[in-house]
């Protein structure tokens, strides 16, 4: 299968006061279209940094990132925003929903940003909220929803623009085991039904092992890459 994402010798350091802390030393890997990939590692291993770089939220110090063969580092900030809008969906550990907006309005936000008419956006948002099993809760604000519900709203928001790549940063990190597992299963289902590429960052080995492929990250370097430990790719 064709690679939808190439990460080539990517380096990234952060400045903490006066010290430059390397977060990624040199990381290279490819992701195929429709793949369900997990990036697994202890905290501080650089996995969130890697996900932010893939998601075009930040730029690496060195190396190249290609999405569908396009070198994203050569794109302007405005073009990157467009790329995030159209090709990438983000799910965060802390959900990152806008607290003042209802679940439905949170979900339709990417469409509104894309300039789609309010009616159309509303319709699409309702559709996907229903798909996530939240139709009864869609007019509630995030604070009135449970963690699992909030994360499903976040997933709906990530998916509404039908992105090629869905990035999830510890999506279960703030949920109890059961709810977390449900979220992962939902992702797996969407991955299989819609053939969307999922890249999930986790430090939970149980969740990491549901993937087609696991990238083990430690101290900013790839330690190992394991293929389908349970034969997940059918």
């Amino acid at each position, binding site marked *: 299968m064709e690679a939808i994402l190439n990460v080539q010798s990517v380096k990234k350091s952060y400045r903490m006061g006066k010290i430059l802390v390397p977060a990624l030393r040199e990381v290279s890997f490819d992701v195929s279209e429709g793949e369900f990939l997990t990036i697994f590692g202890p905290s501080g291993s650089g996995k969130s940094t890697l996900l932010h770089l893939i998601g075009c939220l930040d730029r690496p110090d060195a190396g190249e990132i290609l999405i569908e063969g396009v070198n994203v580092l050569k794109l302007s900030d*405005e073009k990157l925003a467009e790329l995030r809008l159209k090709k990438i969906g983000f799910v965060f550990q802390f959900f990152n929903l806008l607290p003042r907006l209802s679940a439905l309005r949170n979900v339709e936000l990417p469409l509104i940003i894309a300039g789609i008419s309010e009616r159309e956006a509303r319709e699409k948002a309702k559709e996907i909220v229903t798909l996530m099993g939240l139709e009864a809760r869609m007019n509630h604000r995030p604070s009135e929803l449970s963690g699992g519900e909030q994360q499903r709203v976040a997933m709906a928001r990530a998916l509404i623009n039908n992105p090629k790549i869905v990035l999830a940063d510890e999506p279960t990190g703030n949920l109890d085991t059961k709810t977390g597992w449900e979220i992962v299963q939902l992702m797996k289902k969407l991955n299989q039904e819609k053939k969307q590429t999922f890249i999930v960052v986790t430090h939970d080995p149980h969740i990491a092992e549901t993937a087609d492929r696991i990238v083990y990250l430690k101290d900013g370097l790839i330690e190992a890459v394991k293929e389908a430990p349970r034969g997940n790719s059918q």
Partner: protein
Amino acid sequence: MKSSKILAVAWENLTQRKLRASLTTLGVVIGIAAIIGLAALGEGFRLEIRERIQQGFELNVLIVIPGSFTAALRPPFIPQEVNSVRNVTGVALVAPLITLPQVKIYNETNQRINAFTVGAVNFSEMTQMVGERFIPIEGEIPGEDENDTIVLGYRACFLNETTRLARVGDNVTVLQINVSKTLRVAAILGKGGTPGITNFDNWAFIPTKTAVQLMEGEEAYNLILVKVSDIEQSEQVANDIENVFENPYAISVLVPIAFVRQVDRILAIVQLFLMAIASISLLVAGIGIMNIMTVSVMERTREIGILKAIGAKSRTVLAMFLSEAVLVGMVGGLIGILTGYGLSFVLSYGLSNFIQPQQQDTAFQSPGVQQSMAIRPVFSLEWTIIAFIFAVIVCIIFGLYPARKASKLNPVDALRYE
């Protein structure tokens, strides 16, 4: 993102923080109200003053004098010179006038009649020249061939409301040094109202021929009144009149419209100055907007990060925050304009009450003429639009920094922000 939607979102963001938004807007309201209030009041004040000055002049009548007000630089005008003035393009009418300052007038009971100046004129010319000011309340203005007549100004005839010195038909004695003549009072003029050059309340008028006989000399005029056919051409005509004379610098041409324009200009500057002071309050409001928006950007850092993460462009974020500033400016501007006009009415009422009692005793008070300074605020569409645009521009300028700060936020940093 559609601009209409950006505005809607900005409006929503503002209305969700009602107290904060209304306090920010209040600053703009005060600033604009001050500007509009002063502009309306100042404009009313300016019009009132201009009107009052105009009452003292005939705007289309130029006055030509030999020399200047303070010194006669040359002898009075001879008839040929008057004729040359008559022939200048743009001159509609000419009325030469002889002033006889030494003439004393006595009534039948030998009381001195209170005329400061005796002017010798051609009565029909005067009627055409300054018709509205040359209206008799008693008697009739004498015709061309009625010599040995006199027309008295209101104050020359009346000592006060009840005491008068002469009636139409009385014979008065005029005395110029040694020569004396008995003249019949033909008419008494109405009150001129506002003081000014063409206010004849303290004048007396006699026919030119009578004056020549009194002076025992040639016709020589101290003043030429010139009516122009087009007020706007006044300065040009004045210039042409000067050039008729051999030595143009020896004569002066008084152009009332130029004087009025000058006063008008000065008042406009004063008005602008007042408004500049009022603008300072708008500046303060602008800084308030900047302050509140900077805090707001900090509070909403995470929200900005989320928006950027899901694909909002920097431009969109900028537009969103700037729209909030623009909305504050528009709402504040509109309310401020209404408040400002309201304020100007209240102020004008207070000011008029303040001015009126003080004016009662002024020496210039002419009875019967509406004398109180009633300043009516003037609604100016032009100033309204300018004030509104000014409000919005100030808000944009002061909103720009925080809005740019928001748009420049790095999404990763913004998401990490607690």
